[in-house]
């Protein structure tokens, strides 16, 4: 039983991106989902700084300091890309025009609350960025994260302990151990890592899990760690 690595989590989430979607990908694991979108799906990736249609990362020769995504990475544009200013970018986000946003998280509560902007590190300044807008206003909010903290603490909880990003927003969670839907009745597991028992998964989770009748094994191709 080997938990998925970060690239594999990103891969798994990417398989659920539907053809024609407009998606926003957060920093970290979510950003890698762009690399694993199945090639038969034509997807536009939006970035908060106004890029609609982010392409691959720029090679050294083509890198341009004005062509960046919201994570300050120098990128390229895909065919059909457009660029707007920040006001229009967040009008697009707040107006619900993004189909799905994939975000990293520290904690997710059983009713869908998300904590992903303040890990409680002392002294460091706050960083809200676009997370609250994306979480509060996007129709589907998917979270990719490790199922537990490094010290084994649960991240899927009855109630978040860290500062909230938005309430009742997360619709799905992709972890290294499971794919979990957030339903009005709480967490519903759709996929579980092969070799991991339901009891073991529950033991690593801070809220009651239910299991879908057709709960499957969580599988991903071998991928180098991100």
């Amino acid at each position, binding site marked *: 039983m080997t938990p998925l690595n970060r690239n594999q989590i990103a891969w798994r989430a990417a398989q659920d991106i539907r053809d024609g979607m407009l998606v926003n990908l957060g920093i970290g694991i979510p950003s890698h989902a762009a690399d694993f979108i199945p090639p038969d799906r034509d997807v536009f990736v939006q970035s908060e700084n106004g890029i609609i249609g982010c392409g691959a990362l720029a090679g050294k020769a083509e890198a341009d300091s004005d062509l960046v995504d919201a994570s300050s990475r120098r990128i390229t544009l895909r065919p059909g890309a457009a660029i707007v200013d920040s*006001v229009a970018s967040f009008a697009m986000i707040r107006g619900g025009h993004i189909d799905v946003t994939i975000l990293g998280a520290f904690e997710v509560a059983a009713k869908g609350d998300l904590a992903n902007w303040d890990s409680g590190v002392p002294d460091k300044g706050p960083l809200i960025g*676009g997370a609250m807008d994306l979480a509060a206003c996007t129709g589907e909010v998917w979270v990719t994260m490790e199922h537990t903290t490094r010290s084994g603490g649960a991240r899927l909880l009855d109630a978040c302990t860290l500062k909230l990003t938005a309430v009742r927003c997360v619709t799905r969670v992709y972890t290294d151990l499971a794919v979990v839907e957030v339903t009005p009745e709480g967490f519903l597991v759709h996929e579980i890592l092969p070799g991991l028992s339901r009891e073991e998964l529950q033991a690593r989770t801070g809220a009651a899990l239910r299991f879908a009748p057709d709960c499957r094994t969580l599988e991903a191709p071998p991928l180098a760690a991100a």
Partner: protein
Amino acid sequence: MPIDKRVNSTAEALHGVQDGAVVMISGFAGAGFANILIHALAELGPRDLTLVVNSATHPLSRTHELIEAGLVRKVICSAARGRGRDLSPFEKLWKEGRIELECLPQGTFSERIRAGGAGIPAFYTPVGVGTEIEMGREVRRFNGRDCVMEEAIVGDVALVRANVADRYGNLSFRYAQANFGPAMLTACKLAVVEVCEARDEPLPQTAIQMPGSFVDRVFAVGDGVGEGA
């Protein structure tokens, strides 16, 4: 007299900026920092500034020069966390209680600036409901959804980077360079832009991304020098 908004020095560009000014600084993710103007403002040295800037800590922005020089009383932003474990100049002063901080969701930050320029004194948004943003804000339900009321932000001077300007102050931006710039230009009494190139002949109408009627002064810095460290 034929309109000509081009100025020949940073001194002219920043003339009249005073102690206590609310200064809006554009730029995001490495694109669109008016670093020549920011540096010149730090040298000019007005005190007690309020900065309206998306990030108080972006390493490619010279905003830190204003902070390190002790000119800043308050920052309104969406990001104030430096990279790594060491504290950034902003975080040091903030920890010591020497800079006040208002940290906002980025869409609320940009929309409040836009409202300031568009004559909208306040608006409602669902963003921040149920979070610490809600504290001290009026909450009101529309169509079954709680929203917070957010008020406009206006400023005294905007420092914005663009690519090309003409004598009328019309602007075009490269790629992601615009970001908060257009909104900030509308929200400030004095709108100052640094550009690679400031042309005498007018930009073609189809190339203008920001009408010059929102721009007061244009300073040409030549290609590339305004960007990066």
